[in-house]
């Protein structure tokens, strides 16, 4: 990454809502126009800040679900019933609304298919809405015609909960954990050693591995990968949860 991209201060930018639509029953896709956005690498996240009339602010982090080649920023926001920010974002924002955001943030959980001379296989493993950063990675992989072999193993409750199906379909193996449609021939149940062995790159090709999901999911999968013989240094984890209150 260029030196200029490393050394810069983050500032809050006004972001105009272009669209807010239901992606599934629990997740909305919010699309923003952000003048002055410096670009990003798939896997990076951003912070959104909401300010009430009395000056009270609430702030949350979201993975960016679109590649830098896409002119708008896409977020996949899961509505948490007890949440302070996600119900507002999903239910109360409309095109033309202006929010504040800052980013891109994070240089740890990133992979750019557009700048990948190494071309070693990449294995992505997602639980639920943890697939969001992988949507950005795979959309970029498709748009750039990257030669890097990449696979996604995606654990989700039901078929109706699959996010960005058109983007993920060429890469993904699904496992459904709650409910399967009639005639479902695919995998079911939580990701375990047998499922990893069937659907992920084996340790001997030394894949770069990214795991994203709720904390318990991410740690269970990472442990199973190490037990299967993967080098822990090749595994990057992003646990998600509430990062607000600060």
């Amino acid at each position, binding site marked *: 990454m260029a030196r200029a991209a490393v050394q810069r201060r983050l500032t809050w930018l006004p972001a105009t809502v272009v669209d807010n639509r239901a992606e599934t029953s629990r997740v909305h896709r919010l699309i923003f126009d952000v003048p002055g956005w410096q670009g990003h690498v798939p896997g990076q996240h951003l912070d959104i800040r909401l300010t009430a009339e009395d000056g009270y602010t609430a702030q949350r982090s979201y993975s960016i679900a679109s590649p830098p080649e896409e002119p708008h920023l896409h977020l996949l926001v899961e509505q948490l019933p007890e949440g302070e920010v996600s119900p507002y974002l999903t239910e109360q924002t409309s095109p033309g609304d202006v929010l504040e955001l800052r980013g891109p943030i994070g240089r*740890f959980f990133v992979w750019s298919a557009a700048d990948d001379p190494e071309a070693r296989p990449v294995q992505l493993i997602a639980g639920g809405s943890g697939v969001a950063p992988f949507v950005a990675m795979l959309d970029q992989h498709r748009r750039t015609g990257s030669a890097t072999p990449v696979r996604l193993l995606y654990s989700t409750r039901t078929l109706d909960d699959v996010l960005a199906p058109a983007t993920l379909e060429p890469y993904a193996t699904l496992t459904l954990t709650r409910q399967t449609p009639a005639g479902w021939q695919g995998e079911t149940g939580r990701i375990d050693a047998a499922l990893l062995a069937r659907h992920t790159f084996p340790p001997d090709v030394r894949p770069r591995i990214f795991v994203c999901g709720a*904390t318990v999911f991410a740690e269970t999968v990472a442990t199973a990968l190490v037990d299967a013989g993967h080098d822990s240094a090749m595994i990057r984890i992003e646990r998600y949860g509430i990062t607000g209150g600060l």
Partner: protein
Amino acid sequence: MTETTDGTDPTAARRLDGNAAGGALADLFAVDLTAAQCRCAGCGSTAMLGAYHLYADSPALVVRCPSCTQVVLRYASLQGRILLDMRGTELVTISTG
């Protein structure tokens, strides 16, 4: 670290990654610290900050070593002040190239 009688770690579900502290730390630092190599003053192990464990639900952001669980960084922003405690971090190495 406290454990429940069934052996599970009650703090596990709250655990996030140092990666998620990147935005807050950007209030202080001109570089993104999530890919910085950090050496734990407790056990001497080194990892990228993004791989450290973050507990974000306390009054401060608390970052702990993934190897020995020692607190390496605490960060709080309140009432117009930012507080930073990095006693547990022995060395931070940032690649600028």
